[in-house]
């Protein structure tokens, strides 16, 4: 049995982003869940929302069916959704990789972008949460459409 443990960057070079590392001398007949190695590589902002994950390594499409785009692509709502999705992905990643400095820096810049995108959206379309009413001159919470009143087939 080879007891020599390869260096971390050596493992990364061999495994790539689709595979995690295992203990090199793992005991037989033990079930395992390989851990995600790093936040890189990652998809671009709008691709992440379309693919449903920020991480190409975790992108495992069901029956190889892949979305080409999403219904809100190119709209302020689409932009807001895309940034919010990335913040959520980084949130879940950082929960188990809290010491990944690069990922945390990315999360910081994305949360700043999210704040701007949210303000732009609220200015155009009204409040997303009740707290957004702080910048409103009248009670606009009841103004439609509500999220379930949008028809994806016609765009109305």
């Amino acid at each position, binding site marked *: 049995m080879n007891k020599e443990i390869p260096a971390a960057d050596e493992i990364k070079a061999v495994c790539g982003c689709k595979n995690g590392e295992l203990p090199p001398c793992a005991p037989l007949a033990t079930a395992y869940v390989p851990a995600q190695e790093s936040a890189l590589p990652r998809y671009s902002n709008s691709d992440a929302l379309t693919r449903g994950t920020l991480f190409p390594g975790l992108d495992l499409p069901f029956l190889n069916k892949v979305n080409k785009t*999403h219904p809100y692509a190119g709209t302020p709502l689409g932009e807001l959704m895309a940034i*919010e*999705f990335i913040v959520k992905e980084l949130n879940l990643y950082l*929960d*188990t990789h809290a010491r990944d400095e690069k990922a945390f820096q990315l999360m910081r810049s994305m949360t700043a972008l999210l704040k701007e995108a949210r303000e732009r959206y609220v200015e155009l379309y009204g409040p*997303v949460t009740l707290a957004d009413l702080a910048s409103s001159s009248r009670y606009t*919470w009841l103004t439609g459409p509500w*999220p*379930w009143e949008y028809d*994806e087939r016609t765009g109305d």
Partner: protein
Amino acid sequence: MFVYEKKLQYPVKIAATNPALAKVIITQYGGPDGELGASLRYLSQRYSMPYPELKGLLTDIGTEAQQGHKKAARARYAGGFETIFS
């Protein structure tokens, strides 16, 4: 704990209404392995979780499952049923 956002987290694309499919989606909504049960399980399990990173993770995915609940509700509504969440 629960803050309503007047938008969906992820787009729900409906190509055609399909009551048969809506019947399947309804189990994703409130069935044994549905988002409602999942969300409540994560949010209850975190109270006895000793590890800080997993306390955070259970809180975050429990919140996430609430969003999934909204998406399932939206899909079900478009699929021909009535809904109270979106």
